[in-house]
């Protein structure tokens, strides 16, 4: 589904990704782990197409097509979703209107009118079970995008957007950092559900907190801008036990 070939990414004149190779198969769960500063978030942002992350070498393929030079909205339309590590705040943009717009983008359906009650009805109809599972009540829908959200709320809102968009591939950048145990359990359950619903998951984590919530197919270790090792669950266990030195050396 996703294939990186010798990807090199530069941010502000510094090369962060120095030739990364990666292959993620459809309907699987892949994990990217690695120490802080190894380039995991940069990799995620580059795959999603952030304009400040300049690809200076290599290629990104999605479903067999070269998407290296596509703008971010086009990548999203092809089915790539990124759950941000640090979601940005967008003042004055109402959650419910925003979610309705995302659903409209995917399905072409619209609320009956732009009146608030109709928009709420529309969003609740489309996302009801997910809103409930994530613990978002109607009051939450009135808030502005990520403004004043707790760490856990931000992460959960990313998951909600994923279900609004139903991508083919979801890249989740540290969905488990800065969240409490309850939220972690909820996120774990919903990611498992996403997988059941056919969404391929690429999880970036350095805590590995979600590992036991999901049946992980493959683990990739990132270090200094490269994928230095790939393997099954046993690789994760080994690193948990003895640290990254096992694979870095």
């Amino acid at each position, binding site marked *: 589904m996703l294939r990186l070939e010798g990807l090199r990414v530069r941010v502000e004149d510094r090369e962060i990704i120095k030739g990364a190779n990666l292959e993620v198969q459809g309907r699987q769960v892949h994990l990217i782990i690695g120490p802080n500063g190894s380039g995991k978030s940069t990799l995620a942002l580059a795959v999603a197409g952030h*304009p400040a992350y300049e690809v200076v070498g290599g290629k990104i393929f999605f479903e067999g097509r070269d998407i290296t030079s596509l703008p*971010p909205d086009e990548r999203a339309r092809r089915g790539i979703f990124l759950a941000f590590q640090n979601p940005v705040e967008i003042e*004055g943009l109402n959650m419910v209107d925003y979610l309705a*717009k995302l659903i409209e983008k*995917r399905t072409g359906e619209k609320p009956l009118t732009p009146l608030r009650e109709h928009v709420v009805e529309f969003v609740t109809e489309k996302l009801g079970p997910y809103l409930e599972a994530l613990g978002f009540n109607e009051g939450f829908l009135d808030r502005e995008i990520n403004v004043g959200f707790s760490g856990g709320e931000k992460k959960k809102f990313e998951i909600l957007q994923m279900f609004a968009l139903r991508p083919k591939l979801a890249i989740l950048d540290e969905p488990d950092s800065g969240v409490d145990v309850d939220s972690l359990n909820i996120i774990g359950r919903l990611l498992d559900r996403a997988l059941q619903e056919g969404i391929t998951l690429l999880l970036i984590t350095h805590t590995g907190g979600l590992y036991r919530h999901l049946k992980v197919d493959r683990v990739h270790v990132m270090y200094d801008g490269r994928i230095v090792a790939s393997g099954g669950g046993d690789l994760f266990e080994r690193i948990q036990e003895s640290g990254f030195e096992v694979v870095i050396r």
Partner: protein
Amino acid sequence: MSLTEEFLVSKARQISKELGEPDWLREVRERSARLFFKLDMPEHARHVKVDFESLEYFSPAEKAEKLEELPQEIRETLEALGIPEEEMEMLAGMQVQVDSSIVYQTFSDQLRSLGVIAMPIDRAIREHEDLVRSYFARLAGPEENKILALHYALWAGGTFIYVPEGVEVPFPISALFVMRSLPIAQADHTIVVAEEGAKVHYIEGCSAPSYIREALHYGVTEVWAYPGAEVRITTMQNWANHVINLPTKRGVAMSRAKIEWVESLMGSKHTAVRPVIHLRGEGSSARNVGLSFVKGEERHDAGVVIRHLAPNTKSQVISKSVAKDRGSTNFYGKVEIVQGAKGSSGFVQCDSLLLSPEASSETIPALRSDEIDSELGHEAYVGKVAEDKLFYLMSRGLSEEEAITMIVLGFFEPVVRDIPFEYANEIKKLIELSIKGM
């Protein structure tokens, strides 16, 4: 063509004759035409380049009895301004000015029965000459600067609104100004007078379709709020990027009167505007809200001057601006409290959002109080480049245009929220339109 004194004076006379004006007005025109050559540009517009010689200063347009009779492109412009035809009919009164002429007007019987005068100013001069004369050029005069001199020499069109004592106008009165011919200079003159305890909301929309190549807008608005009156003015401007916009706006509030000025300014090659509001009576207040959006090479030098001249006066200035591409938006907020204006307070808040690294924004506060028992505050926030916000939304599959619209509308939301729903909606549509035109 060269713009000589002889030419300008004869042009002034010609306009006066065509409009059938009384002698005193013709004299103001002639005197102003001569002043034009002696005066400098307004201080806040010194750096604005205007090619006075290439402009057409008087361009009458055909009048229409019904809205349907207006030329198609004008009706489209009205639609584009966010005011659908069915809604126009519902407004208490409205008029449409194309270039130098009012081409369409309607004012409801209800307004007439309340004793409200709301009509094109040239007609008001014919029907209520003394009343218009007592307010005309009282808050902004031709001797002040080159642009005002030119205005008083060549002005044409505009609105005269007079609301008698205690009358609350139940619906907004609106006027639309459209520039169509090229290259045109449009100089509308609008006067709003609210007598004691009167209430009125005047909405003006200004637009120039994008095929205009060279244009100058230099209208004048004079606002009088007598004791306890409330005047609200909403201006929605959507200029093509060849329009130089140099309007003059003045207001005076007597005791307990309120003036609220909401201005949404989109586009124009260069806008330089510095509304002046005098809080002359005890307990009077002013609220000035400005929304601005620039793109391409556009530049806005906006600002406001508020003078607190009496005790217990209050003012609030809010400016929110967004700059894209190499656009530049600047705001100069001057609030002065004179000695003796005890218990007065003024607050200036400026926020700006940059949508690209090349865009720029500057805020220059100038707060001054000569009265110890008073309060002045200022808060400025230049938002960092909103690139991450843009990427966040685009990574959800929203196009750049959709993403920018959401960010900009969200940024303006705290201000737009306070505006009555239907007008807020119009401002939103205007912003969307302006972003679409990128």
